[in-house]
Protein backbone atom coordinates (compact mmCIF):
# COMPACT_ATOMS: atom_id res chain seq x y z
CA UNK A 1 0.00 0.00 0.00
CA UNK A 2 1.50 3.35 -0.90
CA UNK A 3 1.38 6.37 1.41
CA UNK A 4 -0.99 9.19 0.66
CA UNK A 5 0.18 11.07 -2.33
CA UNK A 6 -0.94 13.87 -4.46
CA UNK A 7 -1.76 12.38 -7.72
CA UNK A 8 -1.78 14.50 -10.78
CA UNK A 9 -4.61 14.97 -13.20
CA UNK A 10 -5.51 12.21 -15.53
CA UNK A 11 -6.70 8.76 -14.84
CA UNK A 12 -7.21 9.17 -11.14
CA UNK A 13 -9.57 12.11 -11.03
CA UNK A 14 -12.81 10.79 -9.56
CA UNK A 15 -15.07 13.66 -10.52
CA UNK A 16 -15.36 15.73 -13.70
CA UNK A 17 -16.23 18.83 -11.68
CA UNK A 18 -13.02 18.68 -9.68
CA UNK A 19 -11.22 22.06 -9.68
CA UNK A 20 -8.11 21.81 -11.88
CA UNK A 21 -5.65 23.43 -9.45
CA UNK A 22 -6.04 20.97 -6.60
CA UNK A 23 -6.95 17.32 -6.29
CA UNK A 24 -7.96 15.37 -3.24
CA UNK A 25 -5.64 13.10 -1.33
CA UNK A 26 -5.72 9.46 -2.15
CA UNK A 27 -4.81 6.20 -0.52
CA UNK A 28 -4.14 3.27 -2.82
CA UNK A 29 -4.68 -0.19 -1.45
CA UNK A 30 -3.05 -2.95 -3.46
CA UNK A 31 -4.82 -6.25 -3.22
CA UNK A 32 -3.47 -9.77 -3.10
CA UNK A 33 -4.80 -12.25 -5.62
CA UNK A 34 -7.87 -14.02 -4.32
CA UNK A 35 -7.60 -17.37 -2.61
CA UNK A 36 -9.55 -20.22 -4.02
CA UNK A 37 -11.95 -20.69 -1.12
CA UNK A 38 -13.01 -17.06 -0.94
CA UNK A 39 -16.69 -16.26 -1.08
CA UNK A 40 -18.08 -13.88 -3.62
CA UNK A 41 -17.56 -10.19 -3.03
CA UNK A 42 -19.36 -7.11 -4.38
CA UNK A 43 -17.73 -7.57 -7.85
CA UNK A 44 -17.32 -10.74 -9.80
CA UNK A 45 -14.05 -9.55 -11.34
CA UNK A 46 -12.07 -6.42 -12.07
CA UNK A 47 -9.23 -5.35 -14.30
CA UNK A 48 -7.59 -3.50 -11.44
CA UNK A 49 -5.59 -5.08 -8.68
CA UNK A 50 -5.97 -2.15 -6.32
CA UNK A 51 -8.58 0.12 -4.82
CA UNK A 52 -8.23 3.89 -4.37
CA UNK A 53 -9.69 5.79 -1.47
CA UNK A 54 -10.22 9.50 -2.12
CA UNK A 55 -10.31 12.07 0.70
CA UNK A 56 -12.03 15.22 -0.42
CA UNK A 57 -11.34 17.37 2.65
CA UNK A 58 -9.14 15.61 5.20
CA UNK A 59 -8.91 12.55 7.36
CA UNK A 60 -6.41 10.73 5.22
CA UNK A 61 -3.62 10.79 7.76
CA UNK A 62 -5.71 9.37 10.56
CA UNK A 63 -7.28 6.84 8.22
CA UNK A 64 -3.91 5.73 6.95
CA UNK A 65 -2.64 5.27 10.47
CA UNK A 66 -5.60 3.16 11.50
CA UNK A 67 -5.65 1.13 8.34
CA UNK A 68 -1.94 0.27 8.67
CA UNK A 69 -2.56 -0.73 12.27
CA UNK A 70 -5.38 -3.04 11.30
CA UNK A 71 -3.49 -4.60 8.46
CA UNK A 72 -0.53 -5.24 10.73
CA UNK A 73 -2.68 -6.70 13.50
CA UNK A 74 -4.93 -8.66 11.20
CA UNK A 75 -7.52 -8.82 13.91
CA UNK A 76 -10.07 -10.24 11.49
CA UNK A 77 -8.12 -13.47 11.34
CA UNK A 78 -8.44 -13.94 15.09
CA UNK A 79 -12.17 -13.62 15.25
CA UNK A 80 -13.89 -17.01 15.56
CA UNK A 81 -16.45 -16.34 12.85
CA UNK A 82 -16.55 -12.97 11.14
CA UNK A 83 -19.93 -11.36 10.73
CA UNK A 84 -19.94 -11.36 6.95
CA UNK A 85 -18.80 -14.94 6.61
CA UNK A 86 -21.55 -16.08 8.88
CA UNK A 87 -24.20 -14.33 6.88
CA UNK A 88 -22.80 -15.68 3.63
CA UNK A 89 -22.63 -19.23 4.89
CA UNK A 90 -26.08 -18.86 6.28
CA UNK A 91 -27.32 -17.73 2.89
CA UNK A 92 -25.76 -20.69 1.06
CA UNK A 93 -26.16 -23.55 3.45
CA UNK A 94 -29.19 -22.07 5.02
CA UNK A 95 -31.15 -21.86 1.87
CA UNK A 96 -32.42 -25.13 3.07
CA UNK A 97 -32.63 -24.18 6.74
CA UNK A 98 -33.70 -20.53 6.56
CA UNK A 99 -37.28 -21.56 6.48
CA UNK A 100 -39.43 -22.38 9.41
CA UNK A 101 -39.02 -21.39 13.04
CA UNK A 102 -35.39 -22.41 13.22
CA UNK A 103 -34.57 -19.99 10.44
CA UNK A 104 -36.43 -17.16 12.11
CA UNK A 105 -34.72 -17.86 15.39
CA UNK A 106 -31.35 -17.84 13.75
CA UNK A 107 -31.99 -14.51 12.07
CA UNK A 108 -33.11 -13.03 15.38
CA UNK A 109 -29.95 -14.30 17.04
CA UNK A 110 -27.75 -12.74 14.35
CA UNK A 111 -29.56 -9.46 14.72
CA UNK A 112 -29.13 -9.54 18.49
CA UNK A 113 -25.40 -10.13 18.17
CA UNK A 114 -25.10 -7.25 15.73
CA UNK A 115 -26.91 -4.90 18.13
CA UNK A 116 -24.74 -6.02 21.00
CA UNK A 117 -21.61 -5.29 19.02
CA UNK A 118 -22.86 -1.83 18.06
CA UNK A 119 -23.67 -0.94 21.63
CA UNK A 120 -20.32 -2.01 23.01
CA UNK A 121 -18.56 -0.06 20.28
CA UNK A 122 -20.52 3.06 21.15
CA UNK A 123 -19.72 2.72 24.80
CA UNK A 124 -16.09 2.23 24.01
CA UNK A 125 -16.02 5.84 22.88
CA UNK A 126 -17.82 7.05 26.01
CA UNK A 127 -15.48 5.25 28.36
CA UNK A 128 -12.51 6.66 26.45
CA UNK A 129 -14.01 10.13 26.89
CA UNK A 130 -14.48 9.57 30.61
CA UNK A 131 -10.89 8.45 30.94
CA UNK A 132 -9.75 11.63 29.25
CA UNK A 133 -11.92 13.81 31.48
CA UNK A 134 -10.48 12.11 34.53
CA UNK A 135 -6.97 12.78 33.24
CA UNK A 136 -7.83 16.44 32.76
CA UNK A 137 -9.12 16.85 36.26
CA UNK A 138 -6.05 15.14 37.69
CA UNK A 139 -3.87 17.43 35.64
CA UNK A 140 -5.61 20.57 36.85
CA UNK A 141 -5.35 19.40 40.44
CA UNK A 142 -1.66 18.70 40.15
CA UNK A 143 -1.05 22.10 38.61
CA UNK A 144 -3.06 23.76 41.34
CA UNK A 145 -0.96 21.97 43.93
CA UNK A 146 2.25 22.96 42.22
CA UNK A 147 1.10 26.55 42.34
CA UNK A 148 0.35 26.21 45.99
CA UNK A 149 3.82 24.88 46.72
CA UNK A 150 5.78 27.11 44.43
CA UNK A 151 4.11 30.33 45.45
CA UNK A 152 7.34 32.23 45.15
CA UNK A 153 8.45 31.00 41.72
CA UNK A 154 5.40 31.71 39.67
CA UNK A 155 4.52 35.36 39.22
CA UNK A 156 1.49 36.60 41.00
CA UNK A 157 -0.14 37.62 37.79
CA UNK A 158 0.15 34.12 36.32
CA UNK A 159 -1.05 32.62 39.52
CA UNK A 160 -4.14 34.76 39.59
CA UNK A 161 -4.85 33.98 35.98
CA UNK A 162 -4.46 30.28 36.49
CA UNK A 163 -6.57 30.30 39.60
CA UNK A 164 -9.37 32.03 37.76
CA UNK A 165 -9.18 29.38 35.00
CA UNK A 166 -9.50 26.67 37.59
CA UNK A 167 -12.43 28.33 39.29
CA UNK A 168 -14.22 28.88 36.03
CA UNK A 169 -13.90 25.16 35.31
CA UNK A 170 -15.59 24.47 38.61
CA UNK A 171 -12.54 23.19 40.44
CA UNK A 172 -12.23 24.77 43.85
CA UNK A 173 -8.98 26.59 44.39
CA UNK A 174 -7.27 25.06 47.41
CA UNK A 175 -5.99 28.44 48.52
CA UNK A 176 -9.38 30.12 48.76
CA UNK A 177 -11.12 27.11 50.28
CA UNK A 178 -10.59 28.48 53.76
CA UNK A 179 -12.25 31.79 52.98
CA UNK A 180 -15.36 30.56 51.29
CA UNK A 181 -15.76 27.05 52.58
CA UNK A 182 -16.01 24.54 49.82
CA UNK A 183 -17.90 26.84 47.49
CA UNK A 184 -16.53 27.73 44.12
CA UNK A 185 -16.54 31.09 42.41
CA UNK A 186 -19.46 29.94 40.35
CA UNK A 187 -21.54 29.08 43.37
CA UNK A 188 -20.70 32.39 44.97
CA UNK A 189 -21.95 34.30 41.97
CA UNK A 190 -24.98 32.09 41.79
CA UNK A 191 -25.77 32.69 45.44
CA UNK A 192 -25.69 36.46 44.91
CA UNK A 193 -27.92 36.06 41.88
CA UNK A 194 -30.40 33.96 43.83
CA UNK A 195 -30.63 36.53 46.59
CA UNK A 196 -31.66 39.05 43.97
CA UNK A 197 -34.15 36.85 42.16
CA UNK A 198 -35.83 35.44 45.25
CA UNK A 199 -36.42 38.58 47.30
CA UNK A 200 -39.80 39.43 45.77
CA UNK A 201 -41.18 35.87 45.47
CA UNK A 202 -40.28 35.23 49.12
CA UNK A 203 -42.09 38.33 50.27
CA UNK A 204 -45.15 37.25 48.31
CA UNK A 205 -45.14 33.84 49.97
CA UNK A 206 -44.85 34.92 53.56
CA UNK A 207 -41.07 34.86 53.72
CA UNK A 208 -40.51 31.13 53.21
CA UNK A 209 -40.31 28.76 50.23
CA UNK A 210 -39.31 25.14 49.90
CA UNK A 211 -36.12 24.48 47.95
CA UNK A 212 -38.06 22.60 45.27
CA UNK A 213 -40.26 25.65 44.71
CA UNK A 214 -37.10 27.76 44.40
CA UNK A 215 -35.63 25.28 41.92
CA UNK A 216 -38.71 25.45 39.69
CA UNK A 217 -39.00 29.21 39.91
CA UNK A 218 -35.35 29.90 39.13
CA UNK A 219 -35.12 27.45 36.25
CA UNK A 220 -38.34 28.70 34.73
CA UNK A 221 -36.91 32.21 34.81
CA UNK A 222 -33.60 31.13 33.31
CA UNK A 223 -35.15 29.26 30.40
CA UNK A 224 -31.83 28.05 29.06
CA UNK A 225 -28.74 27.12 31.06
CA UNK A 226 -30.77 25.41 33.73
CA UNK A 227 -29.37 24.89 37.19
CA UNK A 228 -28.75 21.41 38.47
CA UNK A 229 -30.20 20.65 41.89
CA UNK A 230 -26.68 20.14 43.17
CA UNK A 231 -25.54 23.57 42.05
CA UNK A 232 -28.60 25.14 43.61
CA UNK A 233 -27.98 23.49 46.96
CA UNK A 234 -24.29 24.37 46.94
CA UNK A 235 -25.07 27.98 46.14
CA UNK A 236 -27.70 28.12 48.89
CA UNK A 237 -25.23 26.75 51.42
CA UNK A 238 -23.15 29.87 50.86
CA UNK A 239 -25.97 32.36 51.43
CA UNK A 240 -25.29 32.87 55.12
CA UNK A 241 -21.51 33.13 54.84
CA UNK A 242 -21.92 35.71 52.09
CA UNK A 243 -24.21 37.70 54.38
CA UNK A 244 -27.02 37.77 51.88
CA UNK A 245 -30.58 38.68 52.93
CA UNK A 246 -31.88 35.13 52.50
CA UNK A 247 -30.81 31.85 54.08
CA UNK A 248 -31.11 28.10 53.77
CA UNK A 249 -32.78 26.19 56.63
CA UNK A 250 -33.30 22.50 57.13
CA UNK A 251 -36.20 21.11 59.16
CA UNK A 252 -35.92 17.98 61.35
CA UNK A 253 -37.68 15.99 58.67
CA UNK A 254 -34.97 16.94 56.17
CA UNK A 255 -37.11 19.37 54.20
CA UNK A 256 -34.98 22.29 52.96
CA UNK A 257 -36.35 25.80 52.71
CA UNK A 258 -35.19 29.28 51.80
CA UNK A 259 -36.22 32.02 54.21
CA UNK A 260 -35.88 35.75 54.35
CA UNK A 261 -33.46 36.73 57.10
CA UNK A 262 -36.30 38.68 58.65
CA UNK A 263 -38.49 35.59 58.77
CA UNK A 264 -38.93 33.96 62.16
CA UNK A 265 -40.54 30.54 62.04
CA UNK A 266 -41.07 30.40 65.81
CA UNK A 267 -43.17 33.56 65.71
CA UNK A 268 -45.22 32.01 62.94
CA UNK A 269 -45.88 29.09 65.27
CA UNK A 270 -47.70 31.38 67.71
CA UNK A 271 -50.04 32.54 64.97
CA UNK A 272 -50.47 28.94 63.82
CA UNK A 273 -51.63 28.02 67.32
CA UNK A 274 -54.22 30.79 67.20
CA UNK A 275 -55.52 29.56 63.88
CA UNK A 276 -55.78 25.96 65.08
CA UNK A 277 -57.47 27.00 68.31
CA UNK A 278 -60.06 29.03 66.41
CA UNK A 279 -60.99 26.03 64.31
CA UNK A 280 -60.71 23.47 67.10
CA UNK A 281 -58.46 21.21 65.10
CA UNK A 282 -56.83 21.21 61.65
CA UNK A 283 -55.09 18.87 59.27
CA UNK A 284 -52.01 20.09 57.38
CA UNK A 285 -54.09 20.43 54.19
CA UNK A 286 -56.81 22.47 55.91
CA UNK A 287 -54.23 24.71 57.55
CA UNK A 288 -52.40 25.22 54.24
CA UNK A 289 -55.60 26.28 52.56
CA UNK A 290 -56.57 28.70 55.34
CA UNK A 291 -53.21 30.41 55.51
CA UNK A 292 -52.31 30.24 51.81
CA UNK A 293 -49.20 28.11 52.12
CA UNK A 294 -48.00 24.95 50.41
CA UNK A 295 -49.07 21.80 52.24
CA UNK A 296 -45.45 20.79 52.76
CA UNK A 297 -44.56 24.00 54.59
CA UNK A 298 -47.86 24.01 56.46
CA UNK A 299 -47.08 20.55 57.81
CA UNK A 300 -43.57 21.64 58.84
CA UNK A 301 -45.00 24.57 60.75
CA UNK A 302 -47.54 22.38 62.56
CA UNK A 303 -44.82 19.87 63.41
CA UNK A 304 -42.66 22.65 64.80
CA UNK A 305 -45.58 23.83 66.91
CA UNK A 306 -45.98 20.27 68.21
CA UNK A 307 -42.26 20.07 68.96
CA UNK A 308 -42.54 23.31 70.93
CA UNK A 309 -45.43 21.86 72.91
CA UNK A 310 -48.17 24.14 71.58
CA UNK A 311 -50.02 21.46 69.62
CA UNK A 312 -50.71 17.77 70.01
CA UNK A 313 -51.72 15.20 67.42
CA UNK A 314 -54.64 12.90 66.71
CA UNK A 315 -53.48 10.12 64.39
CA UNK A 316 -56.29 7.85 63.24
CA UNK A 317 -57.72 6.25 60.12
CA UNK A 318 -59.30 9.63 59.44
CA UNK A 319 -55.85 11.14 59.03
CA UNK A 320 -53.47 13.31 61.04
CA UNK A 321 -55.06 16.25 62.87
CA UNK A 322 -53.50 18.81 65.14
CA UNK A 323 -55.20 20.13 68.29
CA UNK A 324 -54.15 22.78 70.78
CA UNK A 325 -52.13 20.97 73.44
CA UNK A 326 -54.74 20.74 76.17
CA UNK A 327 -52.62 18.21 78.03
CA UNK A 328 -50.41 21.08 79.08
CA UNK A 329 -52.91 23.92 79.29
CA UNK A 330 -55.95 22.21 80.82
CA UNK A 331 -55.83 21.93 84.60
CA UNK A 332 -56.66 18.53 86.02
Amino acid at each position, binding site marked *: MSPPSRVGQGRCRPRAMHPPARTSAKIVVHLHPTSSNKDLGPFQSSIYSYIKLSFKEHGQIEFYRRLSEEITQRRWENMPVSQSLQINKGAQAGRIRAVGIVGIERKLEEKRKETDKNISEAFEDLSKLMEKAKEMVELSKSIANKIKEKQGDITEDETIRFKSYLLSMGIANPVTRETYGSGTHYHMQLAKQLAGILQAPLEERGGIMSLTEVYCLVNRARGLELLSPEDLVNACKMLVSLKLPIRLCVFDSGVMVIELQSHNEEEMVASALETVSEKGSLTAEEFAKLVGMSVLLAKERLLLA*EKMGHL*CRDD*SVEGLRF*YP*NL*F*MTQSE
Partner: protein
Amino acid sequence: MSAEWPWQYSFPPFFTLQPNVDTRQKQLAAWCSLVLSYCRLSKQCSMTVMEAQDSPLFHNRKLQRKLPMESIQVVLEELRKKGNLEWLDKNKSSFLVMWRRPEEWGKLIYQWVVKNGLTNSVFTLYELVNGDDTENEEFHGLDESILLRALQALQQEHKTEIITLDDGRGVKFF
Protein backbone atom coordinates in the same frame (compact mmCIF):
# COMPACT_ATOMS: atom_id res chain seq x y z
CA MET B 1 -68.52 2.98 84.92
CA SER B 2 -71.00 5.12 86.81
CA ALA B 3 -68.73 8.03 87.55
CA GLU B 4 -67.84 10.46 84.83
CA TRP B 5 -65.08 9.91 82.36
CA PRO B 6 -62.28 12.49 82.61
CA TRP B 7 -62.16 15.28 79.99
CA GLN B 8 -59.27 13.54 78.22
CA TYR B 9 -61.53 10.62 77.34
CA SER B 10 -63.42 12.86 74.87
CA PHE B 11 -60.25 14.45 73.49
CA PRO B 12 -59.19 12.59 70.32
CA PRO B 13 -55.43 13.16 70.79
CA PHE B 14 -55.73 11.14 74.03
CA PHE B 15 -55.87 8.00 71.87
CA THR B 16 -52.63 8.78 70.00
CA LEU B 17 -49.35 8.29 71.83
CA GLN B 18 -47.81 11.78 71.71
CA PRO B 19 -44.32 12.14 70.25
CA ASN B 20 -43.48 15.25 72.31
CA VAL B 21 -41.90 13.94 75.50
CA ASP B 22 -43.43 16.46 77.91
CA THR B 23 -46.85 16.05 76.38
CA ARG B 24 -46.54 12.28 76.55
CA GLN B 25 -45.73 12.41 80.25
CA LYS B 26 -48.98 14.24 80.94
CA GLN B 27 -50.88 11.91 78.68
CA LEU B 28 -49.57 8.75 80.33
CA ALA B 29 -50.27 10.13 83.78
CA ALA B 30 -53.86 10.71 82.72
CA TRP B 31 -54.13 7.18 81.30
CA CYS B 32 -52.77 5.59 84.46
CA SER B 33 -55.21 7.48 86.60
CA LEU B 34 -58.08 6.50 84.29
CA VAL B 35 -57.19 2.80 84.33
CA LEU B 36 -57.07 2.78 88.12
CA SER B 37 -60.41 4.57 88.50
CA TYR B 38 -62.00 2.30 85.95
CA CYS B 39 -60.85 -0.81 87.75
CA ARG B 40 -61.85 0.52 91.13
CA LEU B 41 -65.33 1.52 90.06
CA SER B 42 -66.06 -1.46 87.88
CA LYS B 43 -64.61 -3.69 90.58
CA GLN B 44 -62.63 -5.42 87.88
CA CYS B 45 -59.18 -6.20 89.08
CA SER B 46 -57.80 -8.64 86.59
CA MET B 47 -58.13 -8.54 82.85
CA THR B 48 -56.63 -10.01 79.75
CA VAL B 49 -55.00 -7.66 77.31
CA MET B 50 -57.50 -8.70 74.62
CA GLU B 51 -60.43 -7.83 76.88
CA ALA B 52 -58.86 -4.52 77.71
CA GLN B 53 -58.41 -3.62 74.06
CA ASP B 54 -62.13 -3.94 73.37
CA SER B 55 -63.39 -2.54 76.67
CA PRO B 56 -64.78 0.99 76.88
CA LEU B 57 -61.64 1.83 78.83
CA PHE B 58 -59.41 1.87 75.78
CA HIS B 59 -62.09 2.08 73.11
CA ASN B 60 -64.32 5.13 73.03
CA ARG B 61 -66.99 4.09 70.55
CA LYS B 62 -68.77 7.42 70.57
CA LEU B 63 -65.57 9.26 69.65
CA GLN B 64 -64.57 6.50 67.23
CA ARG B 65 -61.13 6.34 68.70
CA LYS B 66 -59.24 3.54 70.35
CA LEU B 67 -55.80 3.31 71.84
CA PRO B 68 -53.63 1.07 69.63
CA MET B 69 -52.15 -2.11 71.09
CA GLU B 70 -48.56 -0.81 71.30
CA SER B 71 -49.75 2.22 73.23
CA ILE B 72 -51.84 0.08 75.58
CA GLN B 73 -48.66 -1.85 76.34
CA VAL B 74 -46.89 1.41 77.14
CA VAL B 75 -49.64 2.42 79.57
CA LEU B 76 -49.61 -1.00 81.28
CA GLU B 77 -45.85 -0.84 81.64
CA GLU B 78 -46.15 2.60 83.25
CA LEU B 79 -48.62 1.16 85.76
CA ARG B 80 -46.33 -1.75 86.47
CA LYS B 81 -43.43 0.59 87.13
CA LYS B 82 -45.56 2.52 89.60
CA GLY B 83 -46.47 -0.69 91.40
CA ASN B 84 -50.14 -0.69 90.46
CA LEU B 85 -50.02 -3.55 87.99
CA GLU B 86 -48.78 -7.11 88.01
CA TRP B 87 -48.55 -9.51 85.09
CA LEU B 88 -50.30 -12.75 85.86
CA ASP B 89 -48.45 -14.84 83.30
CA LYS B 90 -45.14 -14.96 81.48
CA ASN B 91 -46.67 -14.12 78.11
CA LYS B 92 -48.06 -10.86 79.46
CA SER B 93 -51.53 -11.72 78.27
CA SER B 94 -53.36 -11.00 81.52
CA PHE B 95 -52.73 -8.61 84.37
CA LEU B 96 -53.89 -7.58 87.82
CA VAL B 97 -54.65 -3.94 88.52
CA MET B 98 -54.27 -2.72 92.04
CA TRP B 99 -55.70 0.75 92.15
CA ARG B 100 -54.20 0.94 95.56
CA ARG B 101 -50.75 -0.56 95.91
CA PRO B 102 -50.47 -3.64 98.16
CA GLU B 103 -48.29 -1.71 100.61
CA GLU B 104 -51.00 0.92 100.91
CA TRP B 105 -53.64 -1.71 101.62
CA GLY B 106 -51.36 -3.35 104.14
CA LYS B 107 -50.94 -0.06 105.95
CA LEU B 108 -54.69 0.52 106.11
CA ILE B 109 -55.35 -2.97 107.45
CA TYR B 110 -52.63 -2.73 110.05
CA GLN B 111 -53.89 0.67 111.16
CA TRP B 112 -57.32 -0.85 111.76
CA VAL B 113 -55.73 -3.74 113.67
CA VAL B 114 -53.80 -1.42 115.92
CA LYS B 115 -56.68 1.00 116.39
CA ASN B 116 -58.87 -1.82 117.64
CA GLY B 117 -56.20 -3.35 119.82
CA LEU B 118 -56.19 -6.54 117.81
CA THR B 119 -52.49 -7.20 117.67
CA ASN B 120 -51.45 -10.73 118.56
CA SER B 121 -54.71 -12.05 117.23
CA VAL B 122 -55.39 -14.41 114.38
CA PHE B 123 -57.92 -13.90 111.60
CA THR B 124 -58.97 -15.94 108.66
CA LEU B 125 -58.65 -14.11 105.40
CA TYR B 126 -62.41 -14.32 104.96
CA GLU B 127 -63.09 -12.71 108.34
CA LEU B 128 -60.77 -9.89 107.59
CA VAL B 129 -62.44 -8.69 104.45
CA ASN B 130 -65.94 -10.06 104.77
CA GLY B 131 -66.57 -10.04 108.49
CA ASP B 132 -69.04 -7.70 110.20
CA ASP B 133 -66.28 -5.97 112.09
CA THR B 134 -64.68 -4.62 108.99
CA GLU B 135 -67.87 -3.63 107.22
CA ASN B 136 -67.12 0.06 107.28
CA GLU B 137 -63.53 -0.29 106.34
CA GLU B 138 -62.23 0.51 102.93
CA PHE B 139 -60.67 -2.88 102.63
CA HIS B 140 -63.98 -4.60 103.14
CA GLY B 141 -64.71 -6.79 100.14
CA LEU B 142 -61.18 -6.56 98.88
CA ASP B 143 -60.24 -9.08 96.24
CA GLU B 144 -58.41 -12.00 97.82
CA SER B 145 -55.41 -11.94 95.57
CA ILE B 146 -54.82 -8.29 96.42
CA LEU B 147 -55.42 -8.97 100.11
CA LEU B 148 -52.79 -11.65 99.97
CA ARG B 149 -50.27 -9.30 98.41
CA ALA B 150 -51.08 -6.67 101.01
CA LEU B 151 -50.48 -9.13 103.81
CA GLN B 152 -47.29 -10.32 102.16
CA ALA B 153 -46.10 -6.72 102.15
CA LEU B 154 -46.86 -6.48 105.87
CA GLN B 155 -45.12 -9.81 106.38
CA GLN B 156 -42.00 -8.27 104.86
CA GLU B 157 -42.21 -5.62 107.55
CA HIS B 158 -42.60 -8.37 110.18
CA LYS B 159 -46.01 -7.07 111.15
CA THR B 160 -47.91 -10.21 110.21
CA GLU B 161 -47.44 -13.84 109.52
CA ILE B 162 -49.56 -15.72 107.03
CA ILE B 163 -50.56 -19.12 108.41
CA THR B 164 -52.50 -22.10 107.22
CA LEU B 165 -55.66 -22.93 109.11
CA ASP B 166 -58.00 -25.91 108.88
CA ASP B 167 -60.35 -24.34 106.39
CA GLY B 168 -58.04 -22.04 104.52
CA ARG B 169 -55.49 -19.41 105.21
CA GLY B 170 -55.23 -16.93 108.01
CA VAL B 171 -53.04 -14.22 109.33
CA LYS B 172 -51.53 -13.35 112.66
CA PHE B 173 -50.84 -9.76 113.49
CA PHE B 174 -47.99 -8.75 115.73
